[in-house]
């Protein structure tokens, strides 16, 4: 069966990829354009490890039909850092030991970014709610929650914009 071309913006850059019918966005990102930051976990929408932002909203790439992403703006954890300069959320995750095995980290970062983009001063309850769809089996969540609150207190979104990347 013929492949379908799909064009979208990925972390501020135009991308084009051919997808098979029924392909999910996660495959298109990982196999199509080589962005392996979003991971395959459960494939059922339960773990959140494939969380990306589509037009600013958190979505699960494994459950998103790739063809529906034509013309959309997609953000992944790959686009957070600016070369050696980490995004404030990444810095906070590092400083708070919010990653152990690290498999959940890309999804956690994007879920956190979705929160801080719309709510720069979240409460602890807001943070817990924002990452409620993301499973971490290592940290016990507390370091992750503290890292997100710390990034928020230091002005995560403002810091990212200040770095001049088309990431927010």
């Amino acid at each position, binding site marked *: 069966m013929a492949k379908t071309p799909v064009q979208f913006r990925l972390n501020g850059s135009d991308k084009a990829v051919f997808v098979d019918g029924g392909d999910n966005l996660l495959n298109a990102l990982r196999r199509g354009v080589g962005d392996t930051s979003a991971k395959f976990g459960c494939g059922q929408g339960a773990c959140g490890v494939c969380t990306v932002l589509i037009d600013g909203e*958190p979505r*699960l790439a494994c*459950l998103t039909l790739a*063809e529906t992403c034509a013309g959309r703006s997609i953000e992944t954890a790959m686009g957070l850092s600016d070369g050696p300069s980490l995004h404030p959320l990444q810095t906070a995750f590092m400083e708070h030991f919010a990653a152990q095995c690290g498999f959940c980290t890309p999804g956690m970062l994007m879920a956190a970014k979705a*929160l801080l983009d719309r709510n720069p001063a979240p409460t602890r309850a807001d943070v817990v709610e*924002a*990452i409620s*769809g993301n499973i971490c089996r290592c940290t016990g969540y507390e370091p992750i929650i503290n890292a997100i609150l710390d990034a928020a207190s230091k002005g995560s979104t403002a810091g990212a914009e200040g770095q001049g990347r088309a990431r927010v």
Partner: protein
Amino acid sequence: MTLEVKTFGLMSEAATALASDRAARFISGGTLVMRAINEGDTTIATLVRSTDASYRQIRAEGSRIDIGAGVRMVDILGNRDLTFLHPAARVVGGPAVRAMATVGGNLFAPSPYGDLAVALLALDATVSVQGGYGGAQQMPLEQFLAGRDRGQAGLVTMVSVARLANPEAFRFRKIARVKPKGISVLSIAAHLPLSGGRVTSPRVAYGAMAPAPIRARAVERALEGRNLDEAGIASALAVAAEGTSPATDALASAWYRREVLPIHLQRLLLGQTG
């Protein structure tokens, strides 16, 4: 396996395509269909989708509110006319799922999923189902859910609910082991209009207490004309589990679900938290 994806501008065209292909599934938010594809469901050969704008609209005019089947949980949470549905929409998955999952899809979510459908059932919602040919047919949600697992034909295009005279008369509880996001051990929705302090024409619905959301008719009969106090609800609690057939799954046994149902029904009817 490569699937064929067909996109249509009108829901009627999508319904015709669905009706003509037994291996076709309608895809909207993707939380059910893409999951099946990821699991290797070989019964799906064609994905049908629609870009019909009406499918994603909320129209709050007059005494009823029409909710397009493609309206997502986040759309409900952002709509002031649907404030009474916020407690149910808020407990569907995490933020990413709520940005994808649709009202129409929730009507097909297998137990113990489908919390919003439980709320809609207690609100006496009606469902518009577009068949392969002809116009859309309206039916009570209860009738739709009763036939859901028999594979009745048609494409759900819209759900309609009456605008509530008193939104506080509507209550919803989801019982889950994990907070804030957990799969339902069970869920209960109730519309309890009061007249002179007594309940009139109550509607009570359960989720995860049967293969699809069900009305608790024995409870409704027992509540009719009663006060919402401990004495008034006692007879309703005694028949709380009547007509239920819960499953045993990884979250809870059927026995456990029946055991805790009256406790949570009591808390809901008395307006207690916890």
